[in-house]
């Protein structure tokens, strides 16, 4: 009996256990390099998540069930996203923590915090109660606040941490207010309970602003336009690994939550369209236009992240108005976004050691220094830009197709124009990598087998997944299980 009760929450349980394990390690034998061990444990986590999503074995395939007194819903959708998050976590572990990048002594704590953040995000995907939603958001945020500061160049990372904390606290306070009003109006804290009554309460300002402020907290996590101010400074300030973690896995978790909430509201179009429409256009345009003048690579990736969130918001809008294909497209794009953004961060991490800034100039002459990294960078830039043979294009194509079907013609036009504008700075990076001569003595790129294998895997994924993307059906199953 115990076994099948636990079987559904295997991924979260394993992550929590992993966190506690790292806590014990940090106390018992701190100050050792645990990269290889952490990757192994991360891989086990991925296998378990995979098993719980697709496996029909004794561990109990996924039957949609609501656990913990209606506060926690397990379904193919949540397990799918947990698998995606676990995969992202595994990828982040692969970013080697060279001596300077992180304090030698705090390796174990770093892994503990990564694990708790992952735990919080896994909760987010299947949260079904407002209180649990708030606490999961807080766990993830606090783990990130602490992770942000862990860097050898403390001055910058402290400032980044301060900005992140203050901004996060303010938006969580705003979210709390929203949740308060929602609770006040509907009397219950369970999400379906609240949102299923959105039809009759739709017009009362309390409910309207409740939803609005709740989404404010969510959009902070996604760093969409009005709530994006923290992103560029934090990305630039913190270490590469945490920036990568923030840029990829955190956003996927927030997308999962946004889709979940959107699927629960029957008359979501009336309430959310206007808000998300404005936020989508603003983040797309702002993100892409400001990214053009950036010279710092991490900052540019932050702004391009904001731009991509604009596309995801278009996906959410399409999902709200179009139903199942919209959900599929957004899930597909989120998965794609995780991989392509990580590839960019991988190359950034490999080329730029901690001491120097993350200038685009550091990529100069990359094709001679290490062709594989140069290929990864060029392909990831093309994929982020949404250029056809790569998977990024298919993601954008499905997104805009469903958005157009949902009636957002102007949004599609603006989205495509923005993705065109974004090509300028993506191609500029390729130019730096491919053409500009290496002027000052550049940091030597130490070849490492694991990273090369990872690069090849990523390139394979980015190029082939789009072309042979029949996997869209699996994403469709995920979307169907939402309802």
């Amino acid at each position: 009996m115990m076994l099948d009760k636990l079987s559904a929450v295997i991924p979260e349980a394993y992550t929590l256990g992993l966190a506690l394990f790292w806590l014990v390690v940090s106390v018992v034998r701190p100050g050792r390099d645990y990269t290889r061990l952490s990757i192994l444990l991360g891989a086990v986590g991925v296998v378990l998540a995979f098993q719980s999503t697709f496996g029909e074995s004794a561990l109990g395939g996924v039957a949609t069930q609501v656990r913990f007194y209606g506060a926690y819903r397990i379904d193919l959708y949540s397990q799918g996203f947990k698998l995606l998050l676990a995969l992202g976590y595994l990828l982040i572990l692969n970013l080697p923590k060279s001596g300077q990048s992180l304090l030698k002594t705090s390796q174990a704590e770093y892994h503990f915090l990564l694990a708790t953040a992952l735990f919080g995000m896994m909760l987010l995907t299947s949260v079904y109660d407002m209180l649990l939603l708030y606490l999961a958001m807080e766990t993830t945020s606090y783990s990130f606040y602490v992770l942000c500061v862990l860097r050898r160049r403390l001055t910058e990372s402290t400032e980044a941490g301060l900005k992140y904390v203050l901004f996060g606290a303010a938006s969580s306070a705003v979210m709390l207010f929203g949740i308060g009003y929602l609770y006040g109006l509907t009397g219950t804290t369970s999400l379906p309970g609240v949102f299923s009554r959105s039809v009759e309460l739709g017009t009362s300002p309390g409910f309207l602003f409740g939803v609005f402020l709740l989404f404010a907290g969510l959009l902070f996590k996604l760093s969409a336009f009005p709530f994006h101010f923290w992103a560029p400074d934090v990305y630039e300030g913190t270490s590469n690994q945490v920036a990568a973690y923030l840029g990829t896995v955190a956003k996927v978790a927030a997308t999962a939550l946004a889709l979940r909430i959107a699927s629960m509201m029957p008359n979501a179009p009336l309430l959310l369209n206007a808000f998300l429409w404005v936020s989508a256009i603003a983040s797309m345009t702002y993100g892409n236009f400001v990214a053009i003048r950036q010279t710092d690579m991490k900052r540019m990736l932050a702004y391009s992240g904001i731009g991509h969130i604009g596309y995801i918001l278009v996906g959410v809008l399409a999902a709200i108005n179009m139903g199942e294909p919209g959900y599929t497209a957004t899930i597909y794009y989120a998965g794609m976004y995780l991989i392509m953004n990580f590839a960019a961060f991988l190359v950034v991490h490999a080329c730029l050691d901690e001491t120097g800034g993350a200038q685009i100039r550091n990529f100069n002459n990359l094709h001679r220094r290490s062709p594989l990294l140069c290929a990864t960078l060029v392909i990831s830039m093309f994929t982020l830009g949404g250029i056809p043979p790569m998977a990024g294009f298919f993601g954008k194509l499905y997104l805009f197709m469903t958005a157009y079907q949902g009636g957002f013609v102007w949004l599609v036009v603006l989205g495509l124009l923005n993705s065109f504008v974004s090509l300028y700075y993506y191609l500029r990076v390729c130019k730096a990598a491919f053409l500009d001569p290496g002027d000052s003595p550049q940091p030597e790129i130490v070849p490492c087998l694991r990273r090369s294998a990872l690069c090849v895997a990523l390139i394979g994924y980015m190029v082939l997944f789009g072309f042979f993307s029949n996997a869209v059906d699996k994403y469709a199953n995920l979307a169907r299980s939402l309802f």
Partner: protein
Amino acid sequence: MVSLTEYLVVAALLFTIGLLIVLYRSNAILVLIGIELMLNAANINFVAFSQALGGHAGQVFAVFVIVAAAAEAAVAIAIVVLLHQNLGTIDVEKARYLNG
């Protein structure tokens, strides 16, 4: 009998004053105090609704908010102290090296 809206008005006012403190004062500690006040305002909301609705869910929420607020204060103060050690000051206006 004090009606629900009065509580909500007090909470809203407290929230706004908290926000004013956060936006106006340039001392990091005071900003944190401002945030604490905003969270307290949210708590008042919760408890007021709990009393109006008759259920205790609001109070449970308030407890957890207090817990979260405590945790938040701890992290924030720790970071402010670190900031003081690195930047030499806790004036929020001075922490503007990362921009552009």
